[in-house]
């Protein structure tokens, strides 16, 4: 007999996720992932001005802020055939890099780390030992014994206050925690450092988009005009500010994030064989360097991998209505024909809750059990996200990916198959952050040289006015959001939005099973996960968190 356990709310994520898992003999035998909040933003968009859509969909998520706005302006530009100036592409790429570095660092330290790091154990560490270890793995200046002992005192005072705040009721002392106290102490120190650092890198968004979270985008380019002779436009001072922020970010990623990742991973190498799940990976690609329409110019290549077969990259066509479809067999929605999948251009969002009447203890998982729809690519359940991107980049033979992946595998002494796992997912996120740190600076340098060469265009306003729009148009805007492949499909009719559908990374990963009973990424990756204590299921959190769930995104 198996025991059904419930984790709700799953915390240290974005949004409202509920996991129900059946445990038998200390292992998960079945799992259900449910999104329990819906807003209906796709419905709200209908009938509105397509140029405004980016602001609405931006509010889908404030954690991966800006990526929906980016996908949105791309979808409108795609529909209306608007080509943005090179500077706008670069500014968008720089903002994208900043978003990645922010999101991944915050995920690693503030959302994921407490699954691996025992905060209470850090109180027992020897600050001198922590200092020695820290100095051996990185040049980061904050690493003296005094630094660690001050922190420890502060922590001790905090714990002794009896008010543990966000650290209350954690799984401290659980046998699954394996790090020595000194490394726990380093991680806690960097938890606080990262908290302080993350507010800096987002200033890149403030400079180009006016604020963060939720910076401003613009159909046709960006609103931040370059005016080297004006104090309020993008001038030398603003550019220097961005450059400095990108340099500092690179330092943090290479001197704190990556070394910590490499210091923690060796204690959890068993997780290189747990939580792999589907083995199918999907990327739309991103970071165009020669226009959105030129997919070959992307820094992140597009493609799909099936059954962990890295020797073949399948092509993905987002416009083909037989490739990407969303199903609602186990979702709280209604379609004209419930059993038939819909391509997003024809997608519908009619909410229909059929679950148990709250308050309830268990979902009825024999029926619909989630507000997420179930997307499929050519009928396959696909995993999206950092691991998918790194694998597709690696399998495509891109040198940058090969170099960083191979050196990491070597450092950890594990085979490439360890990538298909919870650990692999968490590592991939770090690796692509390191790539981003470099790429961001590269885009920045390109922007500077463009301006030096006299190109100061930032927006193409030729077709901004609706008088030049066709009576009917449709477009796709895609992006590789931090959590994976993101697509926005828009249909414009009579200058208004006739349909707008988002298929979001977490929709792919966290969706309920499809009509044929095929599990999606979360559910399938939980199968066979060991759970030492069903009442403290930290193992479930490890694998679920390795995806970096965002449920506001997933349902929207």
């Amino acid at each position, binding site marked *: 007999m198996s025991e059904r356990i419930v984790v709700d709310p799953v915390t240290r994520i974005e949004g409202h996720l509920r996991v129900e898992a059946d445990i038998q003999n200390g292992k998960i035998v079945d799992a259900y992932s449910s999104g329990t909040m819906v807003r209906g933003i796709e419905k709200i968009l209908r009938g509105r001005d397509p140029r405004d859509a980016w602001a609405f969909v931006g509010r889908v998520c404030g954690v991966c802020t800006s990526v929906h706005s980016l996908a949105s302006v791309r979808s409108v530009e795609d529909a209306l055939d608007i080509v943005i100036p090179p500077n706008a592409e670069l500014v968008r790429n720089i903002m994208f890099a900043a978003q990645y570095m922010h999101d991944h660092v915050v995920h690693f330290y503030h959302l994921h780390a407490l699954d691996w790091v025992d905060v209470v154990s850090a109180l027992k560490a020897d600050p001198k030992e922590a200092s020695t270890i820290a100095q051996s793995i990185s040049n980061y200046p904050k690493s003296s014994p005094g630094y660690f002992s001050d922190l420890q005192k502060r922590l001790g005072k905090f714990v002794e206050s*009896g008010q543990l705040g966000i650290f209350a009721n954690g799984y401290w002392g659980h046998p699954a925690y394996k790090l020595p106290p000194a490394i726990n102490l380093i991680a806690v120190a960097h938890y606080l450092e990262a908290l302080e650092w993350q507010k800096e890198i987002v200033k890149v968004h403030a400079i180009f988009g006016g604020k963060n979270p939720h*910076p401003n985008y613009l159909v046709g380019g960006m609103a931040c005009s370059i005016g080297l002779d004006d104090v309020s436009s993008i001038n030398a001072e603003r550019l220097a500010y961005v450059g400095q922020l990108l340099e500092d970010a690179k330092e943090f990623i290479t001197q704190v994030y990556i070394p910590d990742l490499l210091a923690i991973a060796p204690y959890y190498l068993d997780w290189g064989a747990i939580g792999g799940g589907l083995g199918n990976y999907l990327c739309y690609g991103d970071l165009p360097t020669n226009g959105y329409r030129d997919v070959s110019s992307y820094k992140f290549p597009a493609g799909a991998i099936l059954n962990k077969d890295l020797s073949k990259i399948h092509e993905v066509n987002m416009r083909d209505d037989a490739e990407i479809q969303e199903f609602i067999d186990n979702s709280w929605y209604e379609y004209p024909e419930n059993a038939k999948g819909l391509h997003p251009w024809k997608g519908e969002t009619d909410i229909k809750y059929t679950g148990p009447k709250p308050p309830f203890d268990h979902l009825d998982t024999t029926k619909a059990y989630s507000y997420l729809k179930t997307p499929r690519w050519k009928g396959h359940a696909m995993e999206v996200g950092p691991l998918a991107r790194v694998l597709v980049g690696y399998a495509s033979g891109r040198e940058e990916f090969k170099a960083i992946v191979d050196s990491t595998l070597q450092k950890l002494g594990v085979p490439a198959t360890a990538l298909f796992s919870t650990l692999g997912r968490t590592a991939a996120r770090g690796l692509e952050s390191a790539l981003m740190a470099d790429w961001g600076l590269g885009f920045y340098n390109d922007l500077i040289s463009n301006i030096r060469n006299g190109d100061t265009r930032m927006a193409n306003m030729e077709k901004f006015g609706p008088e030049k729009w066709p009576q009917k148009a449709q477009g796709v805007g895609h992006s590789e959001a931090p959590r994976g492949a993101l697509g926005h499909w828009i249909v414009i009719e009579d200058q208004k939005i006739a349909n707008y559908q988002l298929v979001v990374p977490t929709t792919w990963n966290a969706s309920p099973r499809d009509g044929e009973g095929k599990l999606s990424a979360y559910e399938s990756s939980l199968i066979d996960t060991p759970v030492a204590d069903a009442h403290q299921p930290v193992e479930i959190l490890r694998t679920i968190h390795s995806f970096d769930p965002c449920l506001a995104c997933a349902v929207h």
Partner: protein
Amino acid sequence: MSTRPERPTYYEELLHRGYSRRDFMKFCTAIAAYLGLEATGAAQVAQALSEKPRLPVIWLHFQECTCCSESFIRSSHPIVADILLDKLSLDYTETLMAASGHQAEKCMRDTMEKYKGEYVLCIEGSVPTEADGVYCMIGGRTSLDILKEVSATAKAVICWGSCASNGCVQSAKPNPTGAKPIHKLIKGVPIIKVPGCPPIGEVMAGVLVHLITFGTLPELDGVGRPKAFYSKRVHDTCYRRPFYDAGLFVETFDDENAKKGYCLYKVGCKGPTTYNACSVTKWNNGTSYPIQSGHGCFGCSEENYWDAGALYLRNQPFPGFGIESDADKIGTAAAIATGVGIAAHAVMTNIRKSKLIKDVIDEGKDAEKEL
């Protein structure tokens, strides 16, 4: 607020039970030793224990995008690590707390019991009211249910962001889930609205710091927003205001006027009708704000702003006439039509009333002759 009894500190409690200051210090030294702290640690522990308990805070997430939490952690003064470790005790927030599931629910219950009437309830997100609230459920309960229970024994409620203050994007037409802001759902507890999508991090921190430092609610305006941050329009202190008064406007994005930093009024800036601190406090530790980056304000802190007109249009489309028709276009057409009508009428008058007009004219001519 000031009427509530002060909770005794650990030190006070010990004194009350007959222990002396000496006993207290001995106890602290023991704890410090137990924790492996150095000698100075004991003094610090003593200080911590004799200080006031940190303000307990429960932070609920309903229909939201977590951007308010994200904005909060962007605060630069004070930085959020200091807020979390020294200033308050954030006992429940799904975004950052270590515990999940039952353990998380226990955190909430513990605080509600131990600090009944003393904890501050922060709310991020609106509450769906259609279909008995099933559009937002946490731990198998509806957000409406949770809101009612947790707010009942809170000292005050802070509504973070536009979601909690005015319903934000999900309450825009047709509001498929019946999303409502908090003040429409609960009564009997002081409510502070901190609108904005999201609000500025330093403003959020500022509201909390006010509560902690002065022990009182900040003074609120007529609709419940702290006056300190919401009493001025963005436009009142916008650095582009001189261009506005001069009549110098950006005509389209990235035109020559945009490169010169002219006023964004004609490309849709809603600064003249938006109450927020953006043009003074600015965003991300004073780095910039929407207008400074070349994009107009779209009024993200205002009631109803998603339905209050398209982003880039100064003159809103005329209802029922499509996106390009504003009142001026319709008005001009009507004026031309009127002109044509008048011309037609004048011609008709001369034809159909020719006799009458002739009579009047003849009459005058006769009189002239007679004179």
